[in-house]
Each structure stands twice: as C-alpha cells, then as structure tokens.
C-alpha cells in the first residue's frame, strides 16, 4: 500500500479510503510539520498548517494536477503559503519553554552525557532555535531548507519557486545574520563582521 503511486492513493483517499489517506498523510506530514515548526517556532501553528494543507487536499483535490509536479511539491507549496500568511499576520512566536508538538515538555533524547553536558547542549539548541526564528522569513526559509532540511540549492529553489542564485544569496545573508545573532546571544564575538551589517 505505502509503495503505491501517490496519484492512485490520492484518488482513493478522496473517495473516502482511510487507509489510502493514512498512507499519504504519513508520507508527507512529517516534512510539512517540521518545516512549519521550524519556520513558525510554534507547534500549534505547525499543527494548523498541516491540518489546512490536508484539508485542502480532501476538499479540493482538483487543485493538485499531476502534470504540473509531484504531490509532495504541491503539498509543500501549500504549506509554504500557509506559513507565510501565518508569519505575516502574527508577530513572531517564541515559546519560552521548549515543547514537543503534543504540548509535552521537550525531552532530551537518550544520550550518555552528564547532566551538565545535557544542560549545555540544550542551551545551545535553544539559542540556535531562537537565532533562526529571529531571521526574517525569506532568510529563515533559506536556512531552514538548506541547513535544517538539508535540501540542495536546486531543491530549495524549486520549493520556493525562485532561481538558485536567489536561494544562495538569501542563504549567504541568512548565515551572516545567524552568526551575528549567535555571537550576540553567547556574548562571545569572535570577529567583527561576517557580512551582517
């Protein structure tokens, strides 16, 4: 079932086949959710984005046209639009507590580290999370796609619907800002400038 053609799965899902829908959902939702979470910094917003994306797929499946691209790319495009709208209408949300998507407190994965090391690691993660969320949407998106989602420049450009050069330029600027913010957060400037002016 999981290996079935996405278009066939979609047709079955739209007709009400829950198994087909489950297969489609499980295939695409983690990527969409992580992207939305990393862009918005809010589990609730990410949850809403994922829900809206799949609701659109259920209610208006005709909006996806296989001839124009893969289903995953279509879903990502819808998620991206929803994220951008969310960022436009709401001030940046930074949760004070690191939370999991289900609202439970973030828990360090099993790791053979001392409590001190765990605390330090957690602090670093929180700092970099805050620094990424502090970037403007377009720079943040370049960093999220190219550094966190590990997409190639071509893939990121395709996802954002812009040329590769634009992605590289945004990433360059995003990296510079990220460096400056992290140095500021850690209060340990190692160099005067990395292009962040």
């Amino acid at each position, binding site marked *: 079932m999981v290996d079935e053609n996405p278009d066939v799965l979609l047709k079955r899902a739209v007709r009400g086949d829950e198994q087909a*829908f489950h297969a489609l959902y499980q295939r695409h939702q983690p990527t969409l959710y992580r992207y939305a979470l990393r862009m918005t910094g809010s589990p609730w917003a990410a*949850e809403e984005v994922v829900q809206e994306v799949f609701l659109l797929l*259920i209610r208006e499946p005709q909006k996806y046209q296989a001839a124009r691209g893969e289903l995953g790319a279509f879903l990502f495009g819808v998620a991206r639009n929803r994220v951008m709208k969310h960022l436009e209408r709401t001030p940046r949300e930074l949760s004070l507590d690191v939370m*999991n998507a289900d609202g439970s407190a973030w828990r360090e994965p099993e790791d053979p580290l001392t409590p001190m090391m765990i605390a330090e690691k957690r602090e670093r993660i929180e700092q970099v999370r805050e620094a990424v969320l502090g970037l403007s949407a377009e720079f943040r998106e370049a960093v999220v796609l190219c550094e966190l989602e590990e997409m190639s420049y071509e893939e990121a450009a395709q996802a954002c619907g812009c040329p590769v050069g634009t992605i590289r330029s945004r990433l360059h600027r995003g990296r510079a800002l990220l*460096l400056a913010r992290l140095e500021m957060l850690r209060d340990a400037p190692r160099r005067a400038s990395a292009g962040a002016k």
Partner: protein
Amino acid sequence: MMNCEEFELLGLDIDRADADPREAAAAAQHVEGCARCSALLESWREVKGDLQLLREATRFEAAPARVEMRLKQELRTRREARVLPRRTAVIASWALAAAALLAVSVGWVRTHNQSVRPAAVPESANQVAGVTAIDSNADENETLLAADYDGGEFTQLPGSLPSESGENSIFRVRMQRGGLERFGLPVDPERASDWVDVDFLVGEDGHPQAVRLHQDSLVAAVAQ
C-alpha cells in the same frame, strides 16, 4: 585564487555535499592564507554544529495524532455526504418507478373493466335518462352502432333531452333498421334492411326521446 569578499559569498559552502569542487578547492586554498576568513569558517562550522543539534533534536517531530483523527473525520463526513444523496436518488427513482407501475396497472384495469362490463340497463323507462352511453372508445372491431344495439336498453336520440317529469310513453314499432337513420342514429348499411321491433320512448311533447331495439326482434326476424 579567491579573495575575502568571494570567500564570504561562496566559501562557507566548502563543507556542503553539493558544493562546486572548484569553488571548494579555491576556498580551501584562500582560508589557509587568511586568518580572518579562517576565523569566519571556524565560526560557521560551530554554528553549523549547533544547527546539526537542532536538526537532530527535531528530526522526529511530527504532527500530533489528533490532526490525523480530525482529517479522517472530515473524510468520513464528506464520504457520508456523498453517499446520502446517492441513496436518496436510488430510493426516489424506485418510488417513481413503483408509482408509474401503479398508474399503468390502474389504467389497464379501468380500461379492461370498461370494455368488458356491459352498460347498465335501466329497469324502466323512467330511468332511461341517465343511461345509454355506448362506449365510443371501444375497439374499432367491437364498435356497436346505436341502431344495431340489441342490448335491451334505451338509446338517447341525438338532440333530445331526458324528460324531467318522467311521464313518458313507450311505443313499439316494427320497422326496418335503416329507418332509424331518420332519428339521427347511425345504421350499418349491411343490416339496414333487417326488420326489427323498436320501442320509442316518447315524451310529453310527443317527440321521441330514446329508442330501444326490442330484444325479441332478432328472434322475430329469424321466425319471419
């Protein structure tokens, strides 16, 4: 050879898998001789390590199960909404078909009864006014001309009205069937020369209102 400005733009891609090999080589060569760019690369690698930590910490993040439950509920709702009108349409079409069948059956029974049932025969001349309807819709082969109808009942003559007073008289006349044409009754030409006994129902004004072929006329004709 790459300069500092180019390194800031391209050099930080040195560790990327999809980096251009020539750019990466030029960046590596530049960084060996430039302390500032070397520090920049070191800082970036540290940030990249932090990004790696963040990536690992959120690698298995996924939407909570309640999202899928809500979506499946929507799926069910839409499926039921689609099925309901279809079911209603099926029921409606069956109901229509049944109604049509019923109408056809009733129509057939009525038609059949009318063609089989003989017209009511009045008991007396006083009852003749309400009767005497020969079925004009009967099959062509079964059509009975009024002047041929030996059913023993009165046939209202064309243009006459039933008497309201009921004080009528009956006169029996022996005549040829063709003579009934004069009273406006159609007569089968082949039987026009037959002698028949005819009862005329005559009203108070002396005009015949209805006519009846006497039931014994055929017997009488045969006897003659």
